[in-house]
Structure formats: C-alpha cells, structure tokens
C-alpha cells in the first residue's frame, strides 16, 4: 500500500533541496471528506498531503495553468513542478510530452500506484451510504474501502463503489515517474470497452435518441472541458475572446466574427460542443474520467471518448499516453496504417 509518510518524505526532500518550484498534490480541508488539489511551496506544507480513494482529480490539468504562468515570469523559473500522479494522470503527462506541450525536465513526477483498487465514484458511494454523512474514506484490506460516517464505519468492497474508469483502467501503475510509490503489479482488465460495445450493439436510431436525451441535460458549464488536461487550446471554440477590435473595425466585421456555436443550451449546440470535444480528444484521451466526474448532470461523457479510444486501438493499435518517445497518433503516418477509407 502507498505509505503516505513515504510520499511526504520525498516531497519534503525535493522542496527542501529547492529542486522543484512547488508540488501539486492532494490535500483535504477540515470540513470535507473529499480530497482537494493543494499546492505545496515549503517543506512544512507536506503535512497537508493525503492519499485516499477520493484523490480523483487529474492534477495534470494544473500543469496547463503552470505553462501559462511561466510564460509571464520574468525571468522564468526553470525548475520543474512536482506533481502527484496516478496511473491515468501519468498517461496524461506522456501525451503532453508527445505533443511537446512541455519538456520532461519541466515536471517532477511523484507516481502513486492505485494498486488493485482506484478512486471511488461519489454517486455510487451515496447509494451505499444513503442518508449518512460521510466523514472519511480510506483504502482498507482485501480490496475494501473503509467509509467513516456520522453513523458508524462501513467496509465496502471496492468493486461496488469504484469509478467506472477505474474498473476499466489499463494503467493502475504510473507509466512515467521520478519517484514511484506503492505496489508495481500491473492489473489486467478483460475488456475495457464493455460499455462502448453495449452501445454499439444498439441500432443507429436508438443510439441517436440516447445521446439526444443525454446531451439535452447539458447546461454548458464546460466543467468537462475545464477539468480536462488535454483541453489546453489557447482559445476554446466556445469562448471567442481573441477577436481584436480597433477603432477602425467596422460594424460589419464585428458582426461577421466567426461564432462557432451559440450559448443557448439547445440540442444542436450541445451536440456540436460535445462532438467537437470528443473529436479533439481522439487518440489523446487517457480515460482519467474527469469530464464525467465533473459533470453536474451526469452525462456519460466517458463513453464518447472511449469510443474514439476504441477506434484508435482497432485501426492503429494505439493506446494513448504510454510512450513519450513515440509520435502522437494524430501527427504520424505509418506504412501499415489503414487507408481503405480513401477512395
């Protein structure tokens, strides 16, 4: 099991030595049972670190902010940023390295193995603890979670409350790290595409009505995009902010500014938004499931990404985020690549 003291010791060592600018990790405020992202700047801060089944967040998302911040630093601090990364998160780092978003030396990875479990799904847990106030969740023995509530402590089999993305996980051990904690035994998953295959077995009409129904719920808060480490576009298609206007810009030019989609949360716009996002993640999504977890109305967004993951796997034998030395799927061509769609 990952020993939190080992994590703290290593974090303290690198912070003390001034080897990293700061460390992005998981902490917890006193009033909540869920972990939060924390930013550790001094060796004393390491006591804030926690490691439990509520460390859901993919902290790699904050490396995107860091890059923007660094661009404004004068002079830029060349030290890497430390980051606590689970298996899925480490794959996100690999994708960003493949895409040359940053360099390997820009990041110091404190890898944590999820071992034989993973992170809980809050909604699944709520189903098991109905009416009780959850105070703490911890990793227990025998693939069980220990859930402390205001009405006593429960032991719940991990398989019953694990997030779906963890049940489908193909990287329980970080694939890249500078310091790795926890058991390194890789877990195998019989079929990570079960949900997609079930969807594929439906008729086109049924699939369309399913998605129309689901996407109707979208309130366009963009939490799915905002939580995603791969959504690092300077200007997202949903916010038109880079249209420079001068005194000479005519009303006509302003009016003709490209507006890709309306803010209205109606079917056509919602579908457009979600499909644009899904396509942009093809061959890049590493299934951290943050989009789905962040969604306040519980749209099964993972399934869209998982479908494209399956396409990449079947057509190109490609799994995103395992090898930083390989070119990204979208930016390479190999002789053996299928081309039967070219006519």
């Amino acid at each position, binding site marked *: 099991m990952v020993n939190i003291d080992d994590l703290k010791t290593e974090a303290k060592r690198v912070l003390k030595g001034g080897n990293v600018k700061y460390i992005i990790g998981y902490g917890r*405020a006193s*009033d*909540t049972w*869920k*972990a*939060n*992202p*924390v*930013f550790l700047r001094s060796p004393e801060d390491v006591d804030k670190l926690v490691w439990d089944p509520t460390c859901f*967040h993919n902290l790699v*998302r*904050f490396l995107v*902010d860091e890059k923007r911040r660094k661009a404004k630093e004068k002079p830029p601090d060349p030290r890497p940023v430390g980051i606590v990364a689970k298996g899925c998160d480490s794959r996100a780092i690999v994708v960003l390295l493949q895409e040359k978003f940053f360099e390997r030396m820009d990041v110091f990875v404190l890898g944590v193995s999820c071992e034989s479990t993973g992170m809980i799904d809050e*909604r699944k847990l*709520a*189903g098991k603890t109905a009416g009780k*106030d959850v105070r703490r969740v911890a990793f227990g023995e025998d693939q069980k979670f220990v859930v402390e509530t205001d009405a006593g402590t429960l032991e719940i089999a991990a398989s019953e409350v694990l997030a779906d993305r963890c049940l489908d996980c193909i990287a329980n051990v970080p694939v890249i790290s500078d310091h790795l904690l926890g058991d390194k035994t890789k877990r195998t998953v019989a079929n990570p595409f079960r949900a997609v295959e079930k969807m594929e077995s439906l008729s086109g009409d049924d699939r369309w009505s399913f998605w129309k129904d*689901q996407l109707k*719920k979208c*309130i*366009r*808060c*963009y*939490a799915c*995009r*905002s*939580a995603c480490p791969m959504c690092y576009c300077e200007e997202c298609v949903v*916010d*038109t*902010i880079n*249209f*420079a*206007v001068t005194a000479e*810009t005519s009303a006509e030019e*302003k009016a003709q500014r490209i*507006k890709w989609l*309306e*803010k*209205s*949360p*109606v079917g056509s716009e919602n579908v457009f938004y979600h499909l644009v996002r899904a396509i942009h993640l093809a061959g890049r999504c590493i299934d951290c499931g*943050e989009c789905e*977890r*962040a969604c*306040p*109305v*519980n*749209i*099964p967004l993972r399934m869209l990404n998982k479908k494209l993951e399956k396409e990449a796997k079947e057509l190109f034998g490609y799994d995103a985020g395992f090898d930083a030395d390989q070119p990204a799927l979208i930016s390479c061509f190999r002789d053996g690549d299928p081309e039967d769609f070219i006519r």
Partner: protein
Amino acid sequence: MDKILAKKDYSRWLEKLGSYRIFAPRKRDDVWNYEMVTAPDAERLEDVMTAVPAKGIVFPQREPFFEFAETDDGTRITEILPEGEPVVVFGVRPCEGRAVTLTDDVFGGEFEDHYYWKRRNATTLVGLSCGAPPSPNCFCLSVGGSPHSKEGLDLLLTDLGKTYYAEALTKKGEKLVLEGQKLFTAPGPEDRKAVDKIQAASRKKIRRELSRIENVPAKLRGMFDSPFWDDESMSCIRCGICTYLCPTCHCFDMADEVETSTPLLGKRVRTWDTCQFPDFTMHSSGHNPRPDKASRLRQRINHKFQYFVEVWQKYQCTGCGRCISLCPVGIDIIQVVEKVRDHGA
C-alpha cells in the same frame, strides 16, 4: 391559512392541479433536478436538494426576446413574450425561495424585466421546510435564512410524518390549497406544536457555519488587489458550475442567433452567463478587466458579499451549498469568506 394534508393525498392534490404545469424534484441518472410532472397520480414529494436550482423555471437559461426578419418591406421585429401559463414548483427549499426574492430585486424596481415577471407572476412556489439539512454543505442560518424560511414562497409544507402541515403564505398559495378542496383539513393544536418542534430541532442539525461575517463587505473592499485571490484560485479550473448552479446568480448574455442570413432571419436571445468564463467581461476593444481566474473568483465572492450588499443591503448567498458540493475541485465558499474575514487580522 394553515391546513393539514395527508401524505397519501399528495398525488390526489396534484391531480386536481390540471390547469398548472407542475415541476417537482425527480431523480434521473442519479441526479436530482426539477422536472415536469407528467403522471401526478404516481407522485410523491421528495425531500432533496436538486443539482440545478429552481431559478431556471422563472429565469430560463435561454429566453428569446424577439424575432428579426428581413422582408420586402424592410426589417420586421416581432416580440416573443413568455406565455405566462401557470406553473407550480413543488419541493422548493427555503433557501431557494429566499434566492428568488433576490432575483426579484434585480429584475424588478426601476427597470422591470417583463420577460422575468411574466414567468415569475405565473409561478407558485411550494416550499418544503428542511427537517434535516438536505445537503451536508447547507449553511442557510449563517446568511440570514433558516431551514423553514418563508421568504419568496407561496406555500410552505412541513413534513409531520404521515401528514404535511401546509401554511399558505400568499394568495397564490391559498389558491393552490383551495384547488385541493377537501383533501385539506384544519390543523389541531398538536400539529402546530409538532411543526414548532421540528423547526427548532432542524436548526441544530445544520453542520456548517459561516460566522462573524459582518465586516466581510468592508474587508473585501480593501482586498481588491490582494495576492490572496491568486492563492485561493490556484485550484480553480474555470468552469461555470458554481455560478450556473447558484440559485442567486443571475448574470446573462445576449446574442443574435441567426437562422438564415439571406434573407436575414433570427432571434435575439438572453442566455445565462457567468463571471467564470473568459468572454464574460471581454470588451470589444480587446481589453478584459477579469482576465484570469483570480479576478474571476474575486468577482464571484465580491458580488455576493460586497457589491450586492452595497446595493441591496443583503448577502447574495442563501447558503444552499451547491457551489461547494458540486465544485469539481472542492473550492468552498465558506472557507474563502472565512479567510477574507480573518485576512490581515
């Protein structure tokens, strides 16, 4: 007007409300939301905190204002007003009732927003008082509310086990009770006592507190340029959850949605907007006064605990806790405001 309604008669009451569009909390895909009731006979009143608040019923996320069309005789503008058909919302939490009184202030007064009022005046809000906090992050008591506040509601129901104690608070509320006819009976003295007991107990069950915030508006005024906001917003991911799901947030955008360009045909619509998005304050000059997440978090807190207080002498937060419970990174408005309170102390 106080009455008693047997719980088993709740669905029969709904059946008598055929002239209304009825909304009530429904669970779909593990998420509670107010949804339209299509089969009143199968209905029971759920005691929950929905994800999306009831505000969308009076202030919809998309509201068309008018249609514009280019015709042979020039441009034709046709106003689109909400129909104003009667709506009743069941299971409204007292904090949401209070929240509606705040949007009433914003959309009322000197410049009355008739799109808002057309819906608002046609809406009857049936509150369900909170015997126990419906969310672990409830903190209504700290911001001037209570688990059984009547503000903004037309009717307040209190769960007495086998019955509901119904207090009609407005004419609209009374009308709803009258529609129920004989389903409602006169309460006995023991019923009122039971209500008082539940209400007293419910106040003690609220776990979260935001205390001693009297000086927060003044504190905020002095913290506009503080690096505090950089630190507090480090974990913000810039999504719109905290504001879109806030029952009191009411900022909006307007846009012309063009359906065809030749001949020109389209609608001018109002949609929800949020201070958390980059184009919220984007000027056409290219300048953006809220360019980063620090200034956007500050905007959200300042609006609720300074600007609104300066204009309306009340907090623009009713303590429902949605922004805390649903924030993907656990930013906690209680903790942020407490830190403001203690800042530099």
